[in-house]
């Protein structure tokens, strides 16, 4: 099922938005004005985008600590996201969550999750919700290679098969869990194979190839929508920046991230492909680039200018009634 031109432009817009958002957060972070821990998704855009372009607001996703990309791909308001990162009242979570807990239930974005392996059980819950209510909605669980070793992740794979849940497990294998390599921490060296052994179809794709991701995701999501149960996708990908902003990356060959950016850039791949086969034009893409540059600029300016929450907000939102 090939995407039409409009869809491709939307996809490019999403990927470019994530990239520029993350590159800018990287810069803004050096000013010290973005509080807390920040984990950037730059380099992995094709995965979130390739998966989420097959979803609607009714579908849910469970995310990770590295959640900005998932948010944007799922349609969250970019300006509200930036405000959240700056801890402002008009942020997506009123400044209470920050980068690691950014969420938007209305968009089916169940939250970045600062507990590695925290979200797969939640994602199967959203899938169960769809199944029980008899919709054709699905849920997607995003996990890193590191998270793929967490017990919750395995339990969720099994549960999804047992209950035949409309859930897709996407493993973003960027080769690292913090400062430890996937070659070391995944004993079998094969995340996808492990998932398949739980009894579900599995596909491995090149995570810097948007089209490969999209195709695999569309197939898995289609299966789930048709009530045919869960699937898994392992996408090999690269992390341009450190694990977190400020990470000295001593465990990594110097310049590895930049090298990756030069050789394994999903956005460049996308441009090359769509320009090469004539589906899109440089003018179109450049226009989007310009538009997004402005959007992110504005987002930062507005986020900086926005107000912090008031101290009274400290005590609200714990319960609905108490």
């Amino acid at each position, binding site marked *: 099922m090939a995407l039409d031109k409009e869809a491709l432009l939307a996809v490019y817009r999403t990927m470019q938005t994530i990239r520029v958002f993350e590159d800018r957060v990287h810069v803004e972070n050096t000013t010290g004005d973005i509080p807390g821990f920040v984990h950037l998704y730059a380099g992995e855009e094709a995965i979130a985008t390739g998966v989420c372009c097959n979803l609607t607001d009714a579908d849910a996703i469970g995310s990770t600590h590295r959640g900005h990309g998932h948010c944007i791909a799922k349609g969250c308001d970019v300006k509200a996201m930036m405000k959240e990162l700056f801890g402002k009242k008009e942020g997506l979570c009123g400044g209470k969550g920050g980068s690691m807990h950014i969420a938007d239930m209305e968009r089916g974005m*169940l939250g970045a999750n600062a507990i590695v392996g925290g979200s797969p059980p939640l994602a199967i819950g959203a899938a169960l919700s769809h199944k029980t209510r008899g919709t054709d909605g699905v849920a997607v669980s995003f996990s890193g290679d590191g998270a793929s070793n967490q017990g919750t992740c395995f339990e969720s794979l099994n549960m999804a098969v047992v209950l035949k849940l409309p859930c897709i497990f996407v493993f973003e294998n960027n080769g690292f869990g913090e400062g430890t390599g996937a070659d070391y921490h995944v004993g079998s060296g094969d995340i996808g194979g492990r998932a398949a052994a739980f009894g579900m179809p599995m596909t491995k794709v090149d995570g810097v190839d948007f089209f490969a991701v999209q195709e695999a995701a569309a197939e898995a999501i289609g299966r789930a929508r048709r009530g045919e149960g869960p699937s898994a996708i392992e996408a090999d990908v690269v992390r341009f920046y450190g694990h977190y902003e400020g990470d000295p990356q001593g465990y990594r060959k110097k310049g590895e991230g930049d090298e990756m950016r030069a050789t394994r850039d999903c956005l460049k791949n996308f441009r090359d492909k769509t320009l090469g086969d004539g589906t899109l034009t440089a003018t179109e893409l450049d226009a989007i680039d310009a538009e997004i540059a402005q959007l992110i600029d504005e987002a930062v300016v507005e986020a900086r200018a926005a107000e912090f929450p008031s101290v009274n907000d400290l005590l609200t939102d714990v319960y609905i009634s108490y």
Partner: protein
Amino acid sequence: MPKKSIRIALQEAVVLEMRRDPNVIVIGEDVAGGAGCSGDRGTYGGAMGVTKGLIEEFGDERVIDTPITESALVGMAAGAAATGLRPIAELMFVDFMGVCFDQVLNQAAKFRYMFGGKATTPLVVRTMMGAGFRAAAQHSQMLYNLFTAVPGVKCVIPSNAYDAKGLLIQAIRDDDVVIFFNHKAIYDFEDEVPDEAYTIPFGEANIVREGEDVTIVAFSRMVHTANDAAKSLEKDGISVELIDPRTSSPLDEESIIESVENTGRLVIVDEGTPRCGLAGDVAGMVAEKAFHALKAPIIQVTAPHTPVPFSPVLEDAYIPSAAKVEEAVRKVMTMSRDAVSAS
């Protein structure tokens, strides 16, 4: 009114709410039972038979047996709750919270706050606690203190069948995360329980008996132990006011304070262990908010700071007894306000 056990009261609550609202589902290990087996479906009905037979009326899409995999089941219930269902997750024994604590502590309990008020998670986790079954260290704990400690969680601790039904219906209708703790030793305790649905609001204590001399605050099974003590003390002319808070979070501080302001003396009876427990929590609250009314030290009658032992001799000694409660009450009665000033 018909007499019913806590077990039946709980079942009625679940059934009535499942009939009322198609979004209410039950998830847990053997909540039906028999899946993939050669015999009958639905005869297990959870560790205590509360959901026995429900699968016949509601089907396996709403009475969902899971593998033994508590993190996934409680987390799944939390995720389902955040996306439109009203799941009752059954955790056979509260001790098993050890393997799925994160899904309550860091996930369900915190969604609403972390997401700036934009999540609603009507999750009920129904579980069983307490000693008395010779079930030893890993199947006999109270642990309600650990959840009372968690902002974002409500903790319900019914002591009788009437409350059990009304509180469980309230829990299911409640839009926040509720952990519902049943003491395993009182499932067969009976009470008059209406057939129809009714709710009991959270944070409203039940004054089990009114009295003048000493306030006893007791939780769950200990309400009965304390009541036994109170009856015996009455014979000696000591009048006990017995308060069953019914929910530890929210806690009806007002009723406790009011009572202590009247009696001036407080004994707290808690089957939990003594450190950072419910007893200390209530004592600390009173020592801050009703200090001037106190005529005597606040005595906590709790289990010791040990795991729950297996041998009946030891377990019986472990559980706070009516005799120990009596002793504590007699002790605070020997102390007068004058003694305070004099010391």
